[in-house]
């Protein structure tokens, strides 16, 4: 009862305060919350009210956290950046905050996680206690630690996959837009072919062919090498303008690709490399199409004509004129694709083709415990919520960037 009185007193006080100081939106928000609470309290009684209060409190906490985080960032950033950051809505700040937390979790996972990733410390499905914040999973491993390690593994994989898809797709798209003609047509048709095969099936086939531990490290290294050479060739096609530069460029590409393949295979194991490549191949056509469309709009602009007349090379055009003018939609697309890649990996682990155990990843954690949900147990909701939170966060940031790029000032 005391809670009810205090709660409403606080809300009314705040609403009146907001009204007195002419804070229209704050007043509307607070007063509608008061009204909603009143209605819910009548219908649902105190538990419903408690729920609303907790939800509002959490929202408030998230809002304050985001605000503080934005101020923190503006304080740290350079002047120009700070100016940009100040325009970010609270949701975007919240998104950045979540991304920041996940990044910290991923990078410092071994230091943060109280237990090892594969360490079995208790009974299966043990309830939460002081030692295990979120309880145990089906083998008695600490859920909390696995969520933290999962951030590392899942995000790293999805990120690498998306980045590779972007490098390949964007490079091809930019080149197609600037070169046009036959190259443009061919690239477009290749993209059509890949996009016409349903992604899950495509992934299923590719992973069955190359995947699992059948993928010898050497196979995966060669595939990576091949991928890098293709990307490198695209770069060359854009940058090279004489026979000599082609030859030198080719040597550099081979060298760099080799180093890249070696570096990559030393970080990820063979099956993860294959997964990343499959994801990159499946998603690059989408990126290609978008880049081609955006760059296509830029290419016809007068300043590009002018640059061409000045005698600038393709590479200059791409780097100095086209790319800066198509960054915003590309970045926005990056956020979305990242989410899709994330979900594709989760879906693949549902079909049993994901990351090798006992490595924790959020997708397979959902899958391993999914049937529990039928009994109203929340264990599988935790990794699912983690996936959802990160995706929402990324999209909040993306929204802000889209908003900026649309040039709408309001």
């Amino acid at each position, binding site marked *: 009862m005391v809670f009810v009185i205090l709660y409403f007193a606080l809300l009314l006080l705040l609403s009146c305060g907001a009204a007195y100081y002419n804070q229209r939106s704050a007043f509307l928000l607070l007063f509608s919350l008061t009204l909603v609470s009143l209605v819910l309290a009548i219908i649902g009684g105190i538990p419903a009210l408690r729920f609303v209060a907790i939800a509002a409190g959490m929202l408030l906490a998230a809002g304050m956290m985001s605000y503080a985080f934005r101020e923190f960032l503006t304080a740290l950033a350079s002047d120009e950046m700070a100016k940009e950051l100040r325009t970010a809505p609270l949701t975007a700040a919240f998104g950045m905050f979540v991304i920041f937390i996940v990044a910290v979790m991923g990078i410092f996972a071994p230091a943060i996680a109280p237990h090892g990733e594969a360490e079995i410390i208790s009974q299966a499905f043990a309830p939460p206690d002081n030692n295990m914040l979120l309880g145990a999973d089906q083998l008695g491993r600490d859920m909390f630690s696995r969520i933290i390690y999962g951030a590392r593994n899942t995000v790293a994989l999805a990120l690498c996959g998306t980045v590779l898809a972007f490098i390949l797709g964007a490079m091809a798209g930019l080149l197609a837009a600037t070169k046009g003609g036959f190259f443009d047509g061919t690239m477009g048709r290749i993209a059509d072919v890949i996009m*016409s*095969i349903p992604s899950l099936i495509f992934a299923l086939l590719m992973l*069955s062919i190359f995947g699992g531990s059948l993928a010898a490290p050497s196979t995966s290294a060669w595939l990576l090498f091949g991928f890098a050479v293709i990307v490198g060739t695209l770069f060359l096609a854009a940058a090279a303008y004489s026979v000599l530069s082609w030859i030198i460029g080719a040597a550099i590409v081979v060298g760099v690709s080799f180093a890249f393949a070696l570096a990559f295979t030393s970080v990820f194991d063979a099956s993860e490399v294959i997964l990343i490549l499959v994801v990159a191949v499946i998603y690059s056509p989408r990126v290609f199409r978008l880049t081609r469309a955006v760059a296509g709009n830029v290419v016809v602009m007068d300043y590009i004509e002018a640059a061409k007349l000045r005698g600038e090379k393709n590479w200059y055009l791409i780097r100095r004129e086209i790319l800066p003018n198509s960054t915003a939609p590309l970045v926005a697309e990056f956020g979305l694709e990242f989410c899709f890649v994330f979900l594709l990996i989760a879906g693949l682990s549902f079909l049993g083709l994901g990351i090798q155990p006992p490595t924790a990843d959020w997708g397979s954690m959902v899958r391993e415990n999914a049937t529990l949900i039928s009994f109203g147990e929340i264990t599988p909701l935790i990794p699912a919520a983690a996936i959802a939170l990160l995706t929402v966060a990324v999209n909040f940031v993306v929204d802000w960037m889209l908003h900026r790029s649309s040039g709408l000032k309001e």
Partner: protein
Amino acid sequence: MGDILTLVGKRLGLGLIILLVISLIIFFMVELLPGDIAQAVLGQSATPENLAALRREMGLDQPAIVRYLAWLSEAITLDFGSSIVTDARVTEIIGERFMNTLFLAAYAAVIAVPVSIILGVIVALLRNSIFDRVANVISLSFISSPEFFLGYILILYFAVKWGMFPAIASLSEGMTFLELLQRTFLPALTLVLVVMAHMMRMTRAAIINLLASPYIEMARLKGAPPWKVIVKHALPNAWAPIINVVALNLAYLITGVVLVEVVFVYPGIGQALVDAVSKRDFPVVQACCLIFAATFILLNLAADVGAILTNPRLRHPK
């Protein structure tokens, strides 16, 4: 109008070439899969002799290219041959299932497309309000959770706890249309939730994107109310990207529903495809993939034509 027809003709021709390339890719991918049909059919209990006998019977002793050409020569006449495993006609295996898939896709689309476009317009109108944010967060949470998981949650509430809809969507002969709608409601709802966010967000983005253009500014200065500005002035020019996203999502409803089919035991084409892949049953895999690819190509074409038709500026290119 003539331009559009030539465009359609050109694109259809191109589509056929793409299908040919895809059939080649799929054929060699299935060839590359570890193991072959004979092993898949006989399972764990095969001896080398019966493997050899079965391979002979299935004609697997011929070189791959010969088999591909044989298949192709039939496929041109729209005869997709028989399943290697069961000997049943491919059209027979897939036909009904494809109809089921189409039905489910249509069911989901009929709900999802209008709702998400209307919601998209509303949130564009009320942009940056609480309503916008809430709709955004909710729809994002839906696309962010893996769809099989979404299915499980819906089953928990609608089937187990409240008993409103059946948990499994198996179909039987002699169901009335209403029964059918009720049986397949949960899978359809899952799909609706999965595809809605994308369409809604694109509608919102496409409209907001236009709000800075001078002619919208003009309309606003004229004193038109906000909803009129959006519905009458912004929306017509925003159709192109919206239609594109709708087409993409329709294609997804048909080609990407394997997981939903598994969760709800819905006899659609996705399940048949996964089964066929695991059995290396090439003609079935091929037919399914080609159907998917053709759907994708046709929907894309329809989207482009739709975009041109709704936008006079695209109809008369400079």
